[in-house]
């Protein structure tokens, strides 16, 4: 699964640490999600999308074959 978190973070001028703090997760989690190493739970995905005022589908996308 791919995502646009890095772009949205830049748009809001947030560091990984800032975003992590706002959501209430660890900085490592944000980093792993951004890099596509970790697929977040639906709960976490919705929380991040809500923070950026986006529907989840505009922040996270399935890759081909998924």
């Amino acid at each position, binding site marked *: 699964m791919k995502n646009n978190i890095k772009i949205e973070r830049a748009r809001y001028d947030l560091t990984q640490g800032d975003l*992590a703090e706002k959501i*209430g997760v*660890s900085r*490592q*989690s944000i980093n792993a999600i951004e890099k596509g190493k*970790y697929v977040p739970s639906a709960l*976490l995905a919705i929380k991040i999308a809500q923070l950026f005022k986006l529907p989840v589908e505009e922040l996270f996308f399935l890759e081909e074959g998924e």
Partner: protein
Amino acid sequence: MKSNYLLSNKYKIPGWILLILGLIAGVFLMLSEFESDLLEIKVLAIYNGDSIISNEEDVGFFKIIENNILDEIIALAIIIGGLLVGFSKEKVEDEFIYKLRKDSLVWAIIFNYIVLMFAIVFIYDFTFFNVLVYNMFTPLLFFIIRFNFLKVKA
């Protein structure tokens, strides 16, 4: 992230202290064969088997025997310290950290048994007894090392 078996984060530092003290003392004990009469006390053995140094009357169930409890104290320090370190919450505990912990546990168990299989095949006699001693602690240690490695890398 709710999980019902993790301790509060405040146990992390006492855990590290206990673990490190235990490891240092354990390595020292293994290398130096240090003996002290200070900790030689009477203990209850649920079962005491035959050994070269024990009297015949001490063999059997529920016997009070003399034993130096230094190694028991060190082993408990390493195990309790290791459990506190491995199973207390991180400062920020979330689903990703939880996954890292679970993955590290699986990795540690598999790695431990691979190493043990290797030792079973290639290490014999009394030296193998040492392997068994180390193997009491290695699953926990491999887990802690792997977990912290993954956490730093992430």
